[in-house]
């Protein structure tokens, strides 16, 4: 099954729009990484700051969704260009990868923020 040009264009835009969201998320995330590492990496200290933290949960929920759009589309483009792997079966794999990222990512956010 070949994808229509309109669908291809929508996927291209989804890749760019998710990139714009991720640009902001990654700047904040790099700051969080350095701050958390400086503060000492222990589960107690980390979870004390994240559990029950709604802003943290919302921010990382958005981050996960943007990753779930961006990463599979990026891998799809690379697989197409470098491995010539494309078509319905390939797209089914990338769609499954996207859903798996949503599920495991949201599970991770829940794991560290649920109080």
């Amino acid at each position: 099954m070949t994808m229509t040009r309109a669908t291809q264009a929508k996927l291209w835009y989804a890749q760019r729009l998710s990139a714009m969201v991720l640009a902001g998320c990654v700047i904040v995330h790099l700051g969080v990484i350095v701050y958390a590492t400086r503060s000492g990496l222990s589960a107690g200290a980390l979870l004390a700051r994240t559990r029950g933290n709604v802003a943290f949960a919302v921010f990382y929920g958005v981050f996960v969704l943007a990753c779930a759009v961006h990463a599979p589309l990026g891998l799809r483009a690379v697989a197409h260009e470098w491995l010539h792997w494309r078509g319905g079966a390939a797209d089914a794999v990338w769609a499954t990868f996207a859903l798996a990222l949503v599920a495991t990512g949201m599970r991770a956010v829940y794991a560290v923020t649920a109080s």
Partner: protein
Amino acid sequence: MSASFAIRARSHPAWWAFAVHRVSGVLLALFLPLHFWALAQALDGAAALDAFLRFAERPWVRLAEWGLVVLLALHLTGGVRLLLIEFGPWRGLRKDWIAMTAGAGVVAGLAYALALTR
């Protein structure tokens, strides 16, 4: 593409920017499931997450983490460059942003290394 064209293309900073962006993107995408799995250890309590954090103190894991932080900074800055090329009001290859991408990688690498050695 002839061999001489391929070599000429690769001697251009924009080709290296493309290569770094692509390789960093693939590695970061493949790392995501592992990252989510590690964080989900907290579902089994703080002790389970601590067990993973102790594992992550091994030098080779720290080195891999450091590499991922650098790759994230490179992919971020290189990605902003691509967005500026595609959506920005300017023309050209934004070579200044290629330099900034390398700079961001250095800054993130040093900041994370310093945080580790606090």
